[in-house]
């Protein structure tokens, strides 16, 4: 049984897109709430990778990233963001992000990064 991918994004269209791309190959946990996502990371040992939106109401994705890394330092986290800003990218890498994908993404990009980085 392969590991699961955790998807955290506040927008349904993005969640559905990721689901469409990944569900044929991976088991998914999908949530719109960053707090719930954190819970999953804490309690579910089978999560092998996180796709994390950086801008969500009430949450700064970078903070969430930091919290995930506190709980599970080895777990790869890929940041999914609306625009590429050098500062955010640098900060994300500093905090331990394994990758950085800009919306709108290609299905191929997602499949590629998940395949490569999956723990």
């Amino acid at each position: 049984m392969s590991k699961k991918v955790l998807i955290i994004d506040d927008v349904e269209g993005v969640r559905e897109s990721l689901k469409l791309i990944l569900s044929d190959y991976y088991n998914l946990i999908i949530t719109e709430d960053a707090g719930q996502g954190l819970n999953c990371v804490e309690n579910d040992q089978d999560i092998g990778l996180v796709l994390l939106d950086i801008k969500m109401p009430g949450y700064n994705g970078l903070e969430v990233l930091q919290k995930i890394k506190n709980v599970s330092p080895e777990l790869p986290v890929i940041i999914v963001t609306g625009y590429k800003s050098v500062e955010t990218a640098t900060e994300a890498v500093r905090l331990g992000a394994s990758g950085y994908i800009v919306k709108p993404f290609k299905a191929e990009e997602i499949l590629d990064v998940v395949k490569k980085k999956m723990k």
Partner: protein
Amino acid sequence: MHITIYSILPLTTSIVSISLGLLVLLNNIKAEINRVFFLSSLAVFLWLFCYSICYSTDNEKLANILLWIGCSAVLFISVTYYHFTSVLCYKKKEKKFALSLYYVVLLYLPFSFFTKYFHTGLYKYYFGYYSRVGPFYIYVIIIFMSIISRSLLQLFSTIKLKLLPANQLKQIKYIFLAYFISFFASIDFLPKYHVNIYPFGAVFFLFWSIIISYAILKHQLLDVNIVIRKGLIYSLLIATLTIAYLTLIITIEKLFQNFLGYQSFIISLVYATIIAVFFIPIKNKIQHIIDKAFYKGSTEEIAQENLFLRKEIADKERLKAIATLASGLAHEIKNPLTAVKTFTEYLPSKKNDPQFLDKFARIVNNEVGRIDNLVNQLLDFAKPAPLNLKDTVVEYLIEDTIAFLNNDFIKHNISIVKQYNPNEQHLLKIDQNQFKQALLNLFLNAIEAMSDDGGELIIGIAVKTTASDILCISIQDTGPGIAHEDIKHIFDPFFSKKDTGTGLGLAITQGIIQEHGGKISVETQIGVGTKFKVELPLYSRS
């Protein structure tokens, strides 16, 4: 004691400095930067004032004490400089260090007073008494120079690395220039080592005051109000003229004493003539020139300029808001684009999968709707339509808006509490549609806050009478309240805690209220609720 010509320069500079300091302090006594600037000017004043008296007195004991006070004030100048530049450049750590330096100087004071290591007494020069210093004083000079160099470096690196917004950098350039020039006043250390030159360092502090004043006048340094700024330029002018005038008087007095002997009647007559012939007309003439250069004249025009300045600030705020909006929009619009892109990408391979097609129809439609919505709200925000002002009974408008949302209130189990008399009629001059939009956004916000557990929407109307009548409309929910760190952002475009909203509602509401010349504020308490208060000029009531 008789004021000699040598006292005039330090005395005038000391008075200019303390006036400038007081002006800056009184203009905004709450701002740290203004208070620190006042400390600097106070130290400059103490130094120059004490020394100026030493040049005019024959009392050795008095001179001794004054020289010690003046000398100590010089050290404080360096520390206040450092403190000032740290606050100005937002350097928190350096500011802490500057504060600890105050204690160091305070500790030094008794040493320098009671021992002979730093102050050993005084010299008598042709211009008057001056400090004579001991073997350790050189370290004081080194520390003094290091602190000032550090402040200048701080300013320099802030300018060089462009660490602050452009308008602040412009101000800092002036400060740097002023403080750099004032550094040359170190020339005044020389007579302390028995170099027989007149300590003319005060000149550089006169430049310091003039440059700072200029920056205040032209670049709103230290946020000094324009009407007060006008006062500043006059006091500077009068100070400058007074120096010229006093110099003239004393020179003439000397001439008369040399050639005619002391004849008080003639001297008084000459004084009066000088004042009448030169001083007042010159002062008026220069005042007129300055008026022309800076303000084009009348008080109405000053008021106009004030208004213009305020508008300029408002425009800048608006531009900033639009920039935030644009970047927020760019970010937000990528979400629906992602969905549309992915679903169309999969369409060819899944066109026979009915489940996919169902989802495609729903998601793509939703997301296109989201883009449409975003663009509309952006347009609403960027281009507020001109107001179509009409006399409107605010009670009716509120009733209308409540009726419009009635179903939502019922659905979310929200009851309306009216804390006003629906039979009263308060008249406002407003654009009904826009104002209704503003109210609607506030109500929707309240509904959103109480969507989980229901609650009460409390609406109040009250009249506040100050200079004119102000109508306060309050809209209060019993929701969870807004977190402290979020409260200052709630009117920012694209700031949203909701899953469904775009975060433009409150930004638009604020824009509409401000267009109407009103203001909106918010109070919140976690676990109790949130209250929005809209204040508008009241037209009439019945």
